[in-house]
């Protein structure tokens, strides 16, 4: 961890942007939404003006997501520019005024900032309500998406607090942005040219995740507030007894300089420097609560280095499903059929089919449930990809054996021709190039059995009945029907894709 943080000194990339719970330092949700709306109005006006030659001017509903209009969009103002990953942490919804909405956001934001093993990270905190309001016609997940899309956020975390007798029930939700889904949490399986050469696809689902429902004893509220408060001040030295030199100020960007023995050396934009105790918030009772932040840190780390962290017993089965789905989809491009079956299909079968695992998971202690898995048809889609990958692998291996024999023969011939049976650099390059070409040629010649494709397509079509707007499933069906030259079904499925995009926007 030390090496990792030190590397950030050189890159000056690990940036913190946050504000005090008490002074309203962070971004205000309503202000941000107003700004986004103004930007959209300006962009729409520009696009309309550019369409002036088109007589249908007023009939066109301007779609800001259309790529051809991208140059006409009003420029975004990023609150934290020049970072690779951005996380948004929202003040927890606190309808019964327990007074810890900002406390929880501060704890989560610090945990993510201090313990995420990525080299470039920005953390934004938002204050305000996520509940439905008439002026913006958006709420909860939808409102978070609108706000964070504007700031190119990778993952957002938000939640809600509700008192219940002597407990505080704390819900934590996360959502992965569309950009991150496309860039870090998507998988493709390329098909041979003889089968059309298209790719089958999978995206992580669910992308809006109910991550944790944690019940905290009300008596622990003061220590929770105290822990968050201690994360707001900078000490002169890495020592709790040393003088406090600064408080985290309003609307300023902070840079993490280094980390030493659990202390973070931070520099404020105005030049002030000091130390903050990264372990300051680690009171035992709130450790399980921070599992949500650790899970987010794990997803960020995966985005950067494809390494995944475990889901723990303090999280929901949605977290477990996300973790196992990622592992399974990663295993689809394994070398052997056995590996694909063991690492992709077996984890998927824990969630779907007659052998679905139910009840408490023996490793994570998370209740897997017994219903339709989180993410709807995502596991069925992953299984379809894995089954096709196994078949392609088998066929490839069969052809591969013949190719090896041919290449061995060619090598022997070359050795015979050359002086003392030695191979020169030219010959080696020639062999390598030829092997590469032959491998690609061999793969592209593979055609899988038509009945097998029909079987896979039917399984996917049935899965889509339980998750009708799963775009991955519909697009993959379109690819499979194109292999079968089934134009009628291609037409239906393309219409369904358009409808699904419209319905889920």
């Amino acid at each position: 961890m030390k090496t990792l943080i030190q590397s950030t000194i050189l890159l000056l990339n690990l940036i913190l942007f946050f504000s005090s719970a008490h002074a309203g330092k962070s971004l205000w949700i309503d202000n941000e939404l107003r700004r986004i709306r103004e930007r959209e109005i300006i962009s729409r006006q520009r696009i309309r003006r550019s369409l002036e030659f088109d007589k249908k001017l007023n009939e066109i509903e301007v779609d800001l997501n259309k790529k051809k209009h991208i140059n006409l969009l009003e420029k975004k103002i990023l609150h934290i520019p020049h970072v690779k990953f951005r996380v948004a942490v929202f003040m927890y919804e606190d309808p019964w005024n327990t007074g810890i909405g900002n406390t929880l956001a501060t704890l989560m934001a610090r945990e993510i900032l201090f313990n995420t093993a990525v080299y470039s990270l920005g953390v934004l905190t938002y204050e305000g309500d996520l509940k439905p309001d008439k002026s913006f016609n958006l709420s909860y997940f939808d409102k978070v998406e609108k706000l964070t899309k504007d700031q190119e956020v990778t993952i957002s975390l938000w939640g809600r607090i509700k008192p219940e007798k002597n407990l505080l029930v704390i819900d934590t939700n996360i959502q992965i942005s569309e950009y991150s889904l496309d860039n870090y949490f998507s998988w493709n399986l390329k098909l041979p040219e003889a089968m059309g050469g298209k790719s089958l696809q999978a995206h992580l689902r669910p992308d809006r995740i109910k991550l944790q429902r944690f019940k905290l004893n009300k008596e622990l509220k003061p220590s929770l507030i105290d822990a968050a408060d201690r994360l707001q001040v900078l000490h002169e030295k890495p020592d709790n007894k040393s003088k406090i030199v600064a408080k985290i100020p309003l609307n300023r960007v902070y840079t993490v300089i280094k980390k030493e023995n659990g202390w973070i050396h931070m520099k404020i934009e105005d030049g002030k420097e000091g130390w903050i105790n990264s372990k300051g918030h680690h009171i035992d009772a709130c450790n399980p609560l921070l599992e949500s932040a650790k899970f987010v840190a794990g997803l960020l780390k995966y985005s950067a280095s494809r390494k995944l962290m475990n889901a723990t017993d303090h999280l929901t089965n949605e977290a477990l499903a996300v973790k196992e789905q990622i592992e399974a989809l990663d295993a689809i491009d394994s070398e052997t059929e056995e590996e694909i079956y063991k690492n992709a299909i077996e984890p998927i079968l824990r969630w779907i089919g007659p052998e679905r695992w139910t009840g408490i998971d023996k490793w994570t202690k998370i209740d897997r449930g017994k219903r339709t898995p989180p993410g709807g048809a995502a596991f069925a889609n992953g299984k379809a990809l894995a089954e096709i990958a196994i078949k392609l692998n088998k066929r490839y291996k069969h052809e591969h054996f013949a190719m090896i024999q041919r290449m061995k023969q060619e090598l022997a011939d070359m050795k015979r021709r050359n002086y003392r049976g030695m191979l020169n650099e030219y010959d080696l390059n020639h062999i390598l190039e030829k092997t590469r070409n032959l491998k690609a040629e061999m793969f592209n010649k593979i055609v899988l059995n038509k009945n097998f494709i029909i079987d896979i397509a039917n399984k996917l079509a049935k899965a889509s009945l339980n998750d009708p707007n799963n775009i991955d499933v519909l697009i993959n069906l379109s690819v499979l029907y194109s292999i079968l030259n089934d134009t009628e079904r291609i037409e239906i499925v393309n219409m369904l894709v358009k409808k699904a995009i419209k319905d889920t926007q």
Partner: protein
Amino acid sequence: MKKQKSNLTKIHNLFCLPNKFVFYSTIASFLFFFPSICCIASQLLIHGKVTDGLTGLPISGATVELNKKGNSLGKAFSDIEGYFSVSFDLEMTQEPQVLTLIIEHDKYPKFSSNIQVVSGKTAQKSYMFSLLPFDLAICRMNKGPSVTIGHFRSPVTEDYSELSYRISDTLTYDLLTRLQQLHLNPSLQPIFLACDEANPRGAIQAKNYAKALNTDVFVFGNVKKVAEGYDVRTFVIDKYDLFLIPLSLYNKGIDLDDPGSSQLDSKTHVAILTSIAVGYEQEEKFSYCVDATTAAESILGELTPLLDKVRNRCKDKLIHNKLIIGSEK
């Protein structure tokens, strides 16, 4: 065979005019008078009945007025059985015309509705209007799926009006987030409304409330003080006749001062989402219907027989069925 003289020839003979002149002048006069011919005003009649939305009883003495772009076309009063008929003159046009019918009564807020007239005929033969009393009219939903949380009655004089607001707030979060996880378009997500004025006297009246308020689901209840806190009974009824009698659920020993008391049982959540799924089904939004049942399943952890039935009905109507190869056989 002798040819009969045409009328034009007769006119020509009468006025000793050349044939061509008669022909062209007739055409010209036809063209001159055509606009007034096509816009001739004809007399129409609109029949209907005005009733009380909650009791179903007729409302007599209501003023029923028909307007076109703010100009009154005709006026009438509803009789003792609530019936009315307004006669009015309307210029005939080729395009459909939209008129506004306004109903006014001392005990009910002003009500208006659009009436379409096509080729001199109203779209319906007769019109039924149900009015809601002043205090309830604000709770009537105009469009989209909705859940209305009504009054929780008490045998004592204590006031629990806040309870419906608390329950509404909790339900909004609990159910809306489940639906949003499935990316339902915001414009089609249900609205949750606390309406403490909605205070039905019994099961049958509760059904009327759901229909009169035009809400997919109507939730109400009663509170009883017991030795250890309060017993709260919650009823759920829908406007689609999914539940023939209100679904009743019982929470014992609740501390009403504790916000946790606004947490409804997961079966209540499922009942509400099932009704919303039926609403989507009625609107022929079958994929949304399936999604609503999925959201309900995720709350309960399993499918109830009713939920399963609704889901299968919606699944059967999905175009996706045509994708299964061999299904056409």
